[in-house]
Every structure is written in structure tokens, then in C-alpha cells.
């Protein structure tokens, strides 16, 4: 392993993040606050507890997941698309590194940024609602795994995209609906039976459910299924990336 190369890519990517630290910090704080004003105060005051948890607290895991997933995808997809767009990818291709090292550098940085945002939202949330985290280690593990797997997914999108529109397409058309319909703001058990069945085909349901379990000890699906879902998703993304680098698809002209 070329650890120096991994570090160089990681540090370089992170420096882009630190250049815009204020924006990176302020925008999740503001959007989380808005969610709490709308869902927590305005709507939440009319909703009783959900599965024994106050509605304001209930939506916290979903809110964090929503931001973590979209941030991981957009950071990773932009991180690898930008060098392709401006041409600096030649350096990555001519360097003595393999695909795993590129992935560790770029995906690692994107996941770190998403994790940072997730923690900021967690901190902001604790200002609005009383939060007790029953399984803090599991919570952290779920968050890190989600950051990593969605950063891998974003990396694939970044390589696949041939223009900025395509870069936005998958997050906007696929990921956001899946996250919103994945029980971010409600429990699956609140849905009519038919919709419950449909929801179980949504992979995001398993992630949010597992993440919520680590907070409140209640889940829509068994925790093992949540872990399997995220492991499977990670493995699938890694497999696709390995294939991309092996064939040079959309990278090597």
C-alpha cells in the first residue's frame, strides 16, 4: 500500500473542505434548525409520541441520515468528477497507485466530511430536543458505515457522470425520494400495510431503522437486517468500483 499517496489525496481533498469550513458548518446548522421549526414545533406539537419517543426526538436520526447520505454522495461524486472535468485526473492515472488507494483517499475524505456534518447536526439537534442515546457505539458505527457506503456510491456517480446535470441527477431523482420515503420523519408502522410492504424494498429503510435503534432501542426491522443491508450495499459499491478501475470505464480515454 502506498500510504503516502493515500494521505496526499486525503489531505488535498480535505483542504477543499477547510477552505469552505464556514459554509460547511453553517448550512447544516441552519437547515437542521428549519426542520425542527417545521417538523418539531409546528407539526410535532400536534403529533403524540411515536413508539414511546417524542416526535421531535424521533426525527433526529432520520434528519442526520438524510444529511449524511446526501453529503457523502455529493462530496464523493464531486471530488472525483472535478479532476475529470478540469483534467487533473491525468495525475491520478499516471501515479504509482492502484484503485484501492484512490478510493481510500477520495472516499475517505468524502466520508470524513459527511461524518463531520452528521455530528454537527447531532449537536444542533441536542439544542432543540432532549436526546438520550442508548447505544452510542452502535450509533457511531452506523453513522461511519453510512458515510463510507454512500461516499462509495457517490464516487461511482462521479465517475459515471459526464456533465454537471448527471452529477445531480441520481441524488435528486433516486436518493432524496428514497431517503424521504425511508422513514426519516415517520415510523414504517404508521403506514397502511400495502405501503409497509413496498417500503421494505427501500434499502434506506434498513439504515434509518438501525440508526434509530441505536438512539431509542426501537426499530422497524431487525437490527441484523440493517447491518446486512449496509454491508451488502458497501460490498456492491466496492465491486463496481473495482470493475471501473479494472476496465478503465469512463476514466481512461
Amino acid at each position, binding site marked *: 500500500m502506498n500510504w*503516502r499517496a493515500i494521505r*496526499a489525496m486525503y489531505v488535498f481533498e480535505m*483542504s477543499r473542505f477547510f477552505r469552505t469550513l464556514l459554509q460547511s458548518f453553517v448550512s447544516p446548522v441552519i437547515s437542521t434548525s428549519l426542520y425542527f421549526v417545521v417538523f418539531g414545533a409546528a407539526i410535532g406539537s400536534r403529533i403524540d409520541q411515536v413508539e414511546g419517543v417524542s416526535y421531535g426526538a424521533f426525527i433526529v436520526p432520520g434528519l442526520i441520515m438524510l444529511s449524511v447520505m446526501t453529503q457523502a454522495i455529493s462530496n464523493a461524486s464531486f471530488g472525483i468528477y472535478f479532476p475529470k472535468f478540469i483534467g*487533473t485526473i491525468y*495525475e491520478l492515472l499516471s501515479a504509482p497507485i492502484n484503485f484501492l488507494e484512490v478510493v481510500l483517499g477520495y472516499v475517505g475524505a468524502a466520508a470524513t466530511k459527511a461524518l463531520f456534518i452528521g455530528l454537527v447536526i447531532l449537536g444542533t439537534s441536542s439544542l432543540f430536543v432532549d436526546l438520550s442515546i442508548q447505544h452510542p457505539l452502535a450509533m457511531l458505527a452506523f453513522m461511519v458505515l453510512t458515510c463510507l457506503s454512500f461516499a462509495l456510491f457517490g464516487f461511482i456517480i462521479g465517475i459515471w457522470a459526464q456533465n454537471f446535470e448527471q452529477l445531480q441527477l441520481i441524488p435528486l431523482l433516486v436518493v432524496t425520494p428514497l431517503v424521504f420515503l425511508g422513514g426519516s420523519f415517520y415510523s414504517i408502522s404508521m403506514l397502511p400495510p400495502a405501503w409497509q410492504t413496498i417500503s421494505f424494498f427501500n434499502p434506506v429503510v434498513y439504515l434509518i431503522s438501525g440508526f434509530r435503534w441505536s438512539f431509542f432501542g426501537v426499530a422497524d426491522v431487525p437490527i441484523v437486517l440493517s447491518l446486512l443491508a449496509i454491508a451488502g450495499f458497501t460490498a456492491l459499491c466496492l465491486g463496481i468500483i473495482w470493475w471501473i478501475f479494472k476496465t478503465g470505464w469512463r476514466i481512461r*480515454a
Partner: protein
Amino acid sequence: MQPMVEISDVSKTYKDGFRALNGVSLDIEDGEILALLGPNGAGKTTLISAICGITRPTDGTIRVGGHDVVAEYRGARALVGLVPQEINLEPFERVMNTVRFSRGLFGKPKDDGFLEKILRQLSLWDKRNARIMELSGGMKRRVLIAKALAHEPRVLFLDEPTAGVDVELRRDMWEVVRELKLGGVTIILTTHYIEEAEAIADRIAVIDKGRILLVEEKDALMTRLGQKELRIELQEPIEALPGALAGRGLQLEEDGCVIVYTYDTAEERTGITSLITDLSAAGLVLRDLQTRQNSLEDIFVGLVGDKGDAA
């Protein structure tokens, strides 16, 4: 001594069927400056890309410092620095940062002292904290060179280093290349300017349509390129050259209407004055004079023609 870069029978066919390289074989010696000369679309960039790992050859093998560029890519690529043709740089990044990144990417330990030396050599030290977008075009090109040199490569590829660069900058760039050679770096540069190859190369390889047409010491090639033709059109055709004009290698063409004199522009005396004097002494009346330089294209045409005959 083992060549620094050994290219054996390399071909590259793109997906659309375009054959950019067609059985290229070329050895590049340690420490030399080789100019890869050819028109646009000749396959220069493809050849460089294949050596650097940006594109995979369809056939053939390439070794750098004895390492196969595909099987032993780590060993091979660690030796190679590439300065691309396009100015590919992140506009918001600072000079020092991008150079540091390049060094790390190639697995070299952090050494800001060494980077300072490179930036000073390229007159970029004062700009080390400037953002790339604040730099002029010539400086950006130097940043690309600094990035390529940051990991101490043994071989440096310069793809059209002076395309779109003004005359003064071009001379600066040549100076930089000469200094690098003194430092022991093997340099391969592509160009379609014959003057550029003439100014800095030790050897010149001519490439066209994906084939290497010739590889020659610069001095030998320049002699051939330096040949010029003087075509003297006569008022009246003559049957044979007057005896007084023998021994100059003159040729009679177009049914005796034109006398062709070939001379070397590099010589101190071209012999034109005495030829004209002798012509008028022989009583020949001149209608017109024309000179024609042996151009790179002429050599191309000649080489392609030769290859065609041989096949």
C-alpha cells in the same frame, strides 16, 4: 547500457477503430533529450499516454527503467514525470499545495526544501502562495513542470511544452529543459515545431500516422533539413549544361528550361553568387529565380514514400 525507456512494437487501436499507434518501437537512452516530432494527430500524445499509464496499449510492451509499465506499474510510474499538453490545474489551489500533493501522490516523503529548490529553479518561488488562477499562462505551465518534477522523476515527458506560448517564454522553457538535462533527467518532448527540436534535442524521432518514420541524431537530420533548392528558369531552353557549369551538382529539368541547384544553408558560402556569375558568363539569360526549403513535410513525404516502396 540499458535504455531508460524501451518501447517494443506498441500499437493502440481505439474503440472506434482508429489506429493511433501502429507498431512503434523506440529506445530512449538515459540522460538524452529526445524530440518526438510530428504533425497534429500523428500519435505523439497517445504514445506518451501509453508510457505514463493513462492509456493501455493494445499490443506490445513498454519498459521504463526495466519495469514493465503494465505489470510493474508502480516501479515504472515512480520514475516518470508527465507534463501534459493542456493546462490541467485546480484553479483555486495554491501553488505550493498542488506541488506537495504531486510529491505525496507518488509516494515520496514530504520534503519542502526540495520543492523550494524546484520552485526557485522555475522562478515560481515568489508565487508559492498564489492561487493557480492568479497566474499567467506561462507560469501555469511552469507549475505543471514543477508538479511533474516534485517526485524526482528520472524521465520527464513534456507534451507540447510550448504550444501557444510566446517566443520569449518558449526560450525560457528551452533553458529550463537544458538545466534539467544537466541534472541528469531524461527528457522526451513532443512538438510540431522543427525549430524547437533543433534548439534543444539530442535526437529526433519523426512520427506520423502512428508510425515512427525515423530516429536520427539531430545534427544529421538538420543537415538534411537545411538543404535548399534554387530553381533557375531560363529564357531559352538548353540541350545540355555548359561545360563551365559542371561539378556543381546542377540538374536540368523541364526540358532544359530550369536549372536546379541544391545547396546547404548551414554552409558558410552557399555558392549562389559564383553560380549566377558563371551563368551569365556562359551566356544564359535568366527569366526567374525561386528558392525552396526542404521542409519537414518533404521529409515526411519522402519517408512515407520509401516505406510504401518497401512494403
